[in-house]
């Protein structure tokens, strides 16, 4: 028997757990301003995350999925994307949304039970947060198809978790991306846990990236806590997509340092020791160490950044808490372009009840 095809899956890592270069760094490491901006975004994202969890614990926000452990991946994605590209998220992409121009107040509104939290003004073509697992992958290939049909040199980045790669949506979408040669980058954020189900239960495949091969696409594994590794891989995958060379799949390996959501308690299914080890590989701390070691960052700058981020988050929280709910008639007003006749009576009923309760008109 002779071997017909040979496949391989690359793996990239540049920094050790303490932020020390393991060898030569990629050219992106020379872009000091970009690296510092990335670090600032990671710190802001973590400050936002900490505060939002606190809001939920005190009854001021709904169920919220912590982004802890995803800051490096999300930031690198946000920086690599061109403003004209389209981002197709899942639901733990806060770091990317912030770089795309979604305001912290909008993110709070979304998780705080207000649809206006997805009416993003600064990235109007990005898809909204997608809660049904992996369904967004199909939208990503649709958006990329639109670019191909119109002959536009734009690209799509789609995020999905390790659990999501078990779904047909992911597999069908990477398959189409290969068959139609679409400008899309799938980033699988492998944080080891799909709520309580560990990565090993999702699939016996050695890597998730190798699923790309079955779709005729290149698959890369990258250390998701290594800013330079994720950035280089994202830049290359997007250059490939923009250059008409097709899609790719990146498996960014990290660890979900928080609970699945504020409604979850991860101590029920994973050990404190495993979590402690994961914290030792924290990508934010790793980049901070790198910046300190290379003289690009000092404790004074850190102090200032922490206080700036706190202020930005506090301002957003204030704006969020001060936002009045929409009149309840909004539940009907955005269903279709115009309210159908069949819904007019129900809309009037909603408006009447609202008026009776508040003395305000809801029929504007």
């Amino acid at each position, binding site marked *: 028997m002779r071997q017909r095809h040979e496949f391989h899956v690359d793996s990239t890592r540049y920094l050790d757990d303490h932020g020390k270069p393991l060898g030569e760094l990629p050219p992106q490491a020379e872009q000091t301003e970009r690296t510092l901006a990335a670090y600032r975004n990671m710190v802001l994202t973590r400050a936002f995350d900490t505060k939002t969890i606190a809001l939920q614990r005190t009854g001021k926000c709904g169920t919220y999925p912590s982004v802890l452990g995803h800051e490096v991946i999300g930031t690198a994605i946000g920086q690599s994307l061109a403003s004209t590209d389209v981002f197709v998220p899942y639901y733990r992409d806060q770091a990317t949304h912030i770089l795309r121009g979604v305001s912290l107040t909008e993110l709070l509104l979304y998780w705080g039970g207000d*649809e206006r939290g997805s009416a993003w003004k600064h990235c109007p073509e990005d898809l909204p947060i997608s809660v049904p697992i992996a369904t967004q992958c199909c939208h990503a290939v*649709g958006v990329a198809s639109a670019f191909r049909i119109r002959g536009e040199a734009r690209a799509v980045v789609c995020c999905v978790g390790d659990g999501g790669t078990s779904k047909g949506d992911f597999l069908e979408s990477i398959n189409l991306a290969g068959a139609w040669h679409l400008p899309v980058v799938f980033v699988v954020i492998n944080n080891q846990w799909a709520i309580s189900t560990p990565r090993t239960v999702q699939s016996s495949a050695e890597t998730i990236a190798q699923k790309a091969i079955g779709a005729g696409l290149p698959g890369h594994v990258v250390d998701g806590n290594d800013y330079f590794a994720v950035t280089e891989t994202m830049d290359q995958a997007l250059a490939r997509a923009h250059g008409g060379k097709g899609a790719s799949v990146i498996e960014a390996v990290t660890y979900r340092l928080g609970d699945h959501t504020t409604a979850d308690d991860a101590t029920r299914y994973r050990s404190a020791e495993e979590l402690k080890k994961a914290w030792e590989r924290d990508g934010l701390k790793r980049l901070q160490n790198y910046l300190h070691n290379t003289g690009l960052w000092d404790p004074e700058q850190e102090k200032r950044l922490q206080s700036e981020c706190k202020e930005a988050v506090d301002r957003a929280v204030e704006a969020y808490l001060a936002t009045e709910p929409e009149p309840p008639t909004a539940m009907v007003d955005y269903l279709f372009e115009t309210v159908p006749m069949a819904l007019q009576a129900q809309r009037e009923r909603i408006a009447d009840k609202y008026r009776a309760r508040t003395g305000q008109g809801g029929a504007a």
Partner: protein
Amino acid sequence: MNASAQKAVARSSASEVKDITLVEAVNMALAWEMAHDESVVVLGEDIATNGGVFRATVGLKERFGYKRVMDTPLAENLIAGATIGMAVQGLKPVAEFQFMGFIYAGMEQMVSHAARMRNRTRGRLHCPLVYRAPFGGGIHAPEHHSESTEALFAHVPGLRVVIPSSPQRAYGLLLAAIRNPDPVVFLEPKRIYRAVTQSVTDNGDALPLDTCFTLREGDDVTLISWGASIMETLQAADKLTEQGISAEVIDVATVSPLDRETLLCSVAKTGRAVIVHEACRSGGVGAEIAASIAEAAFLDLQAPVVRVTGYDTIMPYYRNEQAYLPQVDDIVEAVEQVIAL
């Protein structure tokens, strides 16, 4: 507009009048709209080179090119979801599901995304798309090819469910569905794909959505139906005329959102209503119509509202499919029953 599209427009601007079948009307509407709006694209399984298993998309690839007429991999969930991605980008995709029996894999995308996109982004993104599927029984098809499950979609806020029952309405309603800025599930009664021909003017005129069509005026009873059952309903109305009973026949056409006004006005006039549909009975669109009449026109009624429908069981394989489908005599009998009261 590119040169070939302009040529296509020139070809199709002649407002030809043709005697065509329902499935040909679907094809004609797709061709008209593709010729006049570059953002219209069609996709599905076997729809490009093969022209669709029912030939609904025949000739489109040759005329508009493979970029706008796309054969997809065999994955209905993907078709439903990729269509959403195209639609939020401003294209007007028309996706074909080969049979309604295969549409269910796409339902998560329809329910959780297509129907909700405008609402959940507060109008930032919306889905001007059409999901087409042949549906219903009566053509001796294999298992999974004969069901009528329009009620599943009619129950989903944010989806329009439109069902034509003649070549003219297929042409006009499909044009309206494509032009509508929100998602439309367009269900084509395949039993009457080629049952009759009708003269249709290919002039791009759409018919209104969310509106019932009164096919025949009458005074004694209102017969309410849609899709292929319109054929039996009209035949029943003919038989009733012979018996001296004057039946009004209404084609609901858009089963969601419902044009209750037309239905209620008719019932106010006739005082009796018989609802006819192929789908199983409980929780069907007929139940919604009956409830609406009971709520809003109870005092106009001279008899209870009666339904003539399929049974609450699995559509039998084709040797027994006629025993499942409502027949002309079933409708006549139901009318006799309400008239007798």
